[in-house]
């Protein structure tokens, strides 16, 4: 049986604001793990088997779990003009596609100075994979051309490695001379405002670019991943976005509303009914902002958002929905958030529609990618 899809559009009523505020207490009761202050116990060294791990020093002294935890508060995104720092052409590249997200463990012996060599190696590797069994000259002109380029200026702190953008061009087999090769795959590795303690703790041979975004055919993605794994001894895994992450995004985007017009806030839930029920919930931006503002009022810190605020914001939205439809949205999972800034799907897909919003989303995603690191 097909899925039922319920589309619900309505204006958010101001009366709901009070309701949401009543919900606050229960929302703030949700326990959050506090980041342990565990960096001091250096006296416990490790065996040679874990020598490297000891160097990282991050969350690893014996018996410590990885020290990274999701922070309970973060900065409110500020309007920032990216084009001052970053080449607008490069921003345009990041903006137009929907990206599939992966996390990637630190790259060993990756050098930003070698990007040209990597381009050649990856082209040759793709050609070899496509015609397995035959030797391929590195210099040979294959039908695939790979370009690596650094996106300078995107990094937020000194510890962040510069973003690397990869494009695979292909010349159609019967192309007329002079036809520009088409981009058939693109992807980029990035790290924006990664946890400085983690980044600093890595030995010098490693470069941490934990977030990998791809767009293009799955088969090329897997070939590129394979090449990275073989060349830099790293590993990939899919990065799905959990409800909390999507809730952060929804709140952060709503928080930006006065500065940029977000036009709408659209949330999609999936409810575990039989058959599954998809609910799409679109909120007028001004109403969303009013609710957000009413929650924020009492907090003193003006430019940070806390997890409690995010939770009460969502509680408010859910409560309002319950009033009208008698459906507990909290029983389902939040699968998608979108505004005019872009959209994020729980499967690990994200789309940016303007360069202004890229950075704070990437910060959040970098953080989630780092949380996936095995060590």
């Amino acid at each position, binding site marked *: 049986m097909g899925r039922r899809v319920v589309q619900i559009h309505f204006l958010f009523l101001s009366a709901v604001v009070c309701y949401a505020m009543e919900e606050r207490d229960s929302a703030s009761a949700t326990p959050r793990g506090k980041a342990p202050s565990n960096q001091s116990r250096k006296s416990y060294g490790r065996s040679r088997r874990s*020598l490297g791990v000891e160097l990282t020093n991050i969350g690893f002294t014996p*018996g410590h779990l990885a020290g990274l935890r999701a922070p309970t508060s973060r900065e409110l995104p500020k309007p920032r003009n990216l084009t001052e720092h970053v080449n607008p052409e490069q921003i345009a590249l990041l903006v137009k596609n929907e990206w599939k997200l992966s996390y990637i463990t630190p790259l060993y012996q990756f050098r930003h100075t070698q990007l040209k060599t990597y381009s050649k190696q990856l082209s040759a590797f793709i050609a070899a994979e496509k015609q*397995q069994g035959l030797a391929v000259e590195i210099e040979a002109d294959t039908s695939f051309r790979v370009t690596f380029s650094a996106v300078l200026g995107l990094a937020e702190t000194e510890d962040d490695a510069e973003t690397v953008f990869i494009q695979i061009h292909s010349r159609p087999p019967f192309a007329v001379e002079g036809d520009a090769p088409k981009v058939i795959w693109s992807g980029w590795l990035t790290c924006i405002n990664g946890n400085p303690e983690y980044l600093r703790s890595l030995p010098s041979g490693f470069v941490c670019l934990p977030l990998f975004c791809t767009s293009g055919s799955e088969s090329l993605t897997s070939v590129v991943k394979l090449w990275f*794994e073989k060349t830099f001894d790293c590993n990939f895994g899919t990065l799905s976005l959990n409800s909390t992450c999507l809730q952060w995004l929804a709140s952060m985007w709503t928080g930006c509303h006065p500065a940029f017009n977000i036009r709408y806030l659209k949330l999609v839930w999936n409810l575990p009914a039989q058959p599954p029920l998809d609910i799409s919930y679109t909120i007028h931006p001004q109403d969303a902002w009013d609710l957000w503002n009413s929650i924020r009022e009492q907090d003193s810190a003006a430019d940070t958002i806390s997890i409690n605020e995010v939770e009460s914001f969502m509680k408010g939205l859910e409560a309002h929905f319950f009033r009208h439809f008698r459906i507990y949205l909290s029983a389902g999972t939040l699968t998608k958030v979108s505004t005019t800034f872009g959209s994020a799907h729980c499967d690990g897909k994200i789309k940016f529609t303007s360069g202004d919003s890229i950075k704070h989303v990437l910060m959040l995603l970098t953080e989630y990618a780092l949380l996936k690191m*095995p060590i």
Partner: protein
Amino acid sequence: MARKSMLRIPDMDSSSENDSSAPGRSHRSLRVAENAKKKKEAEDPFLLALKYFSQVEAGTPWKGNDTLERHLAVVERVGLSRGLPPQAISILLEFSLSLRMGSLVSMRVLKFLIPASSVPQEAIIRGVSWLCVDKMPMSMQVVFVRWMLTVFDLIDSKDQLRAIYGFIFNFVTEENLCPYICHLLYLLTRKESIRPYRVRKLLELQTKMGCQPFLMNLLSLYKVYCPELVTLSVPPKMKSGFKNHNSTWKAALAAVKKSSTAELVSDLQLSVAVSGQPTARKRKLHSHLTVPVISSSTQSQNRQPGCKVFPLEQLRSFSQLLENLHRIELPAQMGSLLGSPLALHFLDCVRDSSAFLRLNFWLGHSLHEEFMFCKEASAMDRTEATSFLNTLISTQCFLQEGFAATELFLYKFLNIWDGSLLRPEILGLLSDIPVVPCSRIKHLLFEPLMQLFFTSSLFFKCSVIECLTNMLLKWLTWHSVYAFEDDLDISLTSQTPVNMTLSGLMDSVVELVQFVGRISAIGLQLEGYHSLLLSFTMDFYVTVSDMYLKYDLPLVLLPPPGVFYPALFATDPVNVDKLCHIMYRYRKNLMSAKSQERETKKPIEVSRKTYREFNQYLVSMVSCLWNSRAFQPGTGVELDKGLLSRSGVPEPWARFSLVHHPAFLGHALDFHQNCWPERTKMDLGSIKSGKRWDWYVQFLYCQGLHGLEEFIQSSLSRQSPSRATRDTTGGLSTSQTTSQTTAC
């Protein structure tokens, strides 16, 4: 008939039987064997199916034909899982190409025609001759030629195939077949097969079809052999090589190859590339648990010029490893070292911390992806997970250390583990973890383990205790290997696995021992003092009792009463014997701790309380087993006299003596029968008197109760051999021994 003889050969399992049928065997037994073989043949559905396909008449209807469907399913399963033996390939190819049952069935057969070892040349020749008959639909012709290209390397010899080069060449004019035929010709071409008319034909085709890469490739090969015949300028930007045509069989080929390499592994114990899956190009969904293939790094720019390196993948023997140890280069993927025993020897010598970090990243990633992040249940490839974890366990065992990534993973995994998934493997890994600081041991290890322990079966409880025993054993071994006499702070070199302070280690050991004491006391009670659990618990205390003497850790920790008394009153002699041995070892340890303290004037941290407790236990044991004075004041377990008399047991204080103790009762009866074979009325009390008692004790020693022997000989000094005064002197001497210990 030739086909008949073919049919018999696929029975490869029994061929070894045939070889062993030595001339010494009688005709009769040969006949019996023959019959048995025939019978087996008749029953094997695979052979039956082959027989069916070799004999089925042309024109038999295939729609609704259940027999066909059944046989097809059988051969298909074999083909896709293990691959087909050469004879089966011949039969099925013949069946398929002769179109005896229509092209649909034929196509289906072609799709699972995966060779297990080789493809007989004759089958291919017959196939080509069917192709020449020109009955097949075009799509099938294409599939057949593509199949030939796919299995080309497996064809056992190619001489006859080259002999019919001309026939194959004829198909070049067939428009749909042309690309594939060109590829096939490319593979078959020798200098002698190049003729002017063939070159002309190809050039003619080229003018007709345009500059096609497959024609160009074939022509350029011709040009290599006979440059005088081919006057053609090959454009420099030509795409090199042919495409792969194996897409139809790709997945099946990889699966068959994988299963066959798995069989080979046992033969290639020391070779480097044992775990290689060289053809698994496309990574499947569950690819987290494959050890990568060893390959050298492509990033050789930073290599010193003039410095010769030895690629790890060329390593074949241990002597090679020794010769080239200084020149071996780390592989591109550190995880690949886990795949080969030889590479592990190399890993053992690696001192590069980045290399281990890479290894840990890979390992942690694999474990996390498979067991933590993977949403869909991986019940299907449990075997893959098992073999991966076993590789990991044996690697850690080889290196005598656990990896940090494993440890981190386990701490997280314990919280979500159901206690049954891959239990032996997970507990095996758990026992490898290095010493956990006592501040976190409770949170990381004890809490999740305790939850699992109390909610799981008896056998799980036993395996947890065993796991913790091994863990303790490893911690103590590390300590004893790396502890230095003068320097109690053992953080000297990077070699030490545990360079934590001695007191830190001791705290952790104390925590662990106390934890096991707690859970085993409660566990025993829950399980009704099951002998098995008791035995595992006793094994744990065998290690604990010897920590000072055997492992040089100045620590003596006694079992809690909840463990001691159930063991003392256990119904099986094994556990009581183990308890005796443990008490003997405790005594030795305490005595030597005492003398050490006297000699060096260095206080050893064994508290007065421990001595007191030990004496209490000793008194209990001696009064129960030896003096028949159980349950009396001052013997540890005291019971109210009224209560004892209400139980109606005669002489309750003697019920746990060596004669009456339920664990030794069997031995006592045995002894009684041996002593007085003529007596019909059993009187165990008579063992207690005179020389009989000594004999009985000797008899018990002879039954293998060595723990008891050690215990009695060390803890009881009998002043007089006379049995008449046993009760008093025995008691006295015991108390003397006891007081000695107390005085220490």
